[in-house]
């Protein structure tokens, strides 16, 4: 109950603080901005660690195993895990189930090739140590190479081939409306592409083609702007809806009280600033 009210007050305060930037840059806005950056970074890091690194990396290097059944290399390997457990018990848990001691995380099959990913991940952290910071380039090289390969395939297959295929349309379909649609689409694609073809000077008939291409691009930009405005208004509606929700008695009149306080503070600060300037 009280947590809910406190949450509403914090939400209202931060929303009004961000909106106050529309009046002018001020201390409320800066405060909310810094909180946002800090909380986002911490939130992302903790979520990524507990959802990916711990179960998917450590869980594959050390899946849960009965300690008494370990022998040879595995005994040594899980000995390392035990050392990590002593240092970081929450990340590397041990459990006694029905009197039997288990070490490890989850029930994935063990895959020691994940050691390569682990080492590359550690190399990324070496950026913090200037002397061996160069090692992080190996990790970056892997990430860039993997991403480039992955994207190249996706774009070639779906964007280039898929879209070229979708543009190969009949100019006459037997229906006037769809035929006009197809013609507009084909003319738009060809003239739009030609506008970005700079190996020939755009003059005479080519200038006309290029100009038609610009018109198509302008329509695209206009539509994008319209959609962008629509999206921003939607977000404003969402915030206003929350402000209205939190303005009631059950939330201790959070919105009207904080609004009045902030307006008064902003007016006083502006007056003070003006008098200092004079």
């Amino acid at each position: 109950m009280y947590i809910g009210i406190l949450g509403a007050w914090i939400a209202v305060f931060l929303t009004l603080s961000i909106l106050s930037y529309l009046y002018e840059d001020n201390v409320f806005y800066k405060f909310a901005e810094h909180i946002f950056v800090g909380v986002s970074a911490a939130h992302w890091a903790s979520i990524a660690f507990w959802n990916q690194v711990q179960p998917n990396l450590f869980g594959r290097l050390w899946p849960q195993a009965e300690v008494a059944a370990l022998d040879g290399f595995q005994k040594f390997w899980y000995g390392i895990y035990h050392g990590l457990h002593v240092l970081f018990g929450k990340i590397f848990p041990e459990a006694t189930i029905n009197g039997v001691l288990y070490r490890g995380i989850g029930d994935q099959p063990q895959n020691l090739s994940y050691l390569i990913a682990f080492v590359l991940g550690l190399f990324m952290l070496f950026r913090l140590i200037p002397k061996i910071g160069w090692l992080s380039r190996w990790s970056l090289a892997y990430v860039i190479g993997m991403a480039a390969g992955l994207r190249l395939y996706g774009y070639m297959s779906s964007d280039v081939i898929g879209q070229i295929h979708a543009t190969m349309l009949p100019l006459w379909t037997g229906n006037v409306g769809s035929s006009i649609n197809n013609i507009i689409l084909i003319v738009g694609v060809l003239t739009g592409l030609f506008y970005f073809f700079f190996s020939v000077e755009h003059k005479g008939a080519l200038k006309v083609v290029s100009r038609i291409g610009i018109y198509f691009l302008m329509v695209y930009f206009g539509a994008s702007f319209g959609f962008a405005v629509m999206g921003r208004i939607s977000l404003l509606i969402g915030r206003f809806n929350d402000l209205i929700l939190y303005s009631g008695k059950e939330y201790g009149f959070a919105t009207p009280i904080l609004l009045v306080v902030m307006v008064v503070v902003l007016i006083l600060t502006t007056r003070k600033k003006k008098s200092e300037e004079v």
Partner: protein
Amino acid sequence: MVKSKFGEKFVNFLGKLDSLDRRIIFLIIGIVVLIPLLLPLGLPIETTQLTEDAFYALDALPQDAKVLMSFEYGPSTKPEIHPMAISVLRHLFSKGNKVIIMCLWPDGLFMANEALDLVARQEFDLEYGVDYVNLGYRPGNEAIIKGITKSFAANFSIDAKGTSISKLPIMNDIQTARDVDFIFSLSAGYPGAIEWVLYAGDPLQVPVSSGNTSIQVNQLLPYVKSGQMKGIIAGMPGAAEYETMVIRKIEENIGIITPEARELLPQFKERRNATKFMDAQSIAHLVIVLFIVLGNISFFVKRRQQRKY
């Protein structure tokens, strides 16, 4: 030529509009958004082809179909996309479909939990792990999508609650993304709907659709036109249309509908957020169009005055 005194004043006023304090414009927009939220007008919602395509693609799925829903949005885009998430979940659960949820954005996990808490737990009272599951967030963007085309277990060893996915009945016959019947991405940017088309929909030939922010619509339309996506729910208007279509489907008894969904209809009607928001959206758009027209008139009047002197 403007001859009357009033006309002259009006022209001067228009000429000065471009130097208007922008804070006055913000205030006007704020007021026109606020008033319809406090006093709803109930403007009618007409459905469009894009939303209808998405709706009918999902509606055509058989009762035992499993749908993969990916949450790729956060609080910043919640007003646009969250009503879509709720409507799509209501639609799928009202047909008895199973839903597998995953998140490619960290904040998506909270959005998914909120939507599931309302629709799966409070409204339909479904069984976790049997009727739906939340696999949680995984960092890695398109690498995760690519990964689940090979193996779910390799990327999601546990769900959002920490349960091993091998212990979840809903995941029994799901080894890869190829095993789901439909992919629905609730997308606010990268990674999002485009990545689902590129790395899962096209390579595996699994139908993909999306509920997305308005700003993404232009980027996604080519995929809809080419058939790589089965329609899209575009921004808040799309969300309002989808809400209307789900309610109409249950009201008019079209296709597969579970008895629970019929009982829940009054609640669905009452909790129509996107439809409620559309009044404010429409009025704000009218005012912005008016500003653009006035801005242009002001520009031409000023240019004419400058030429005169």
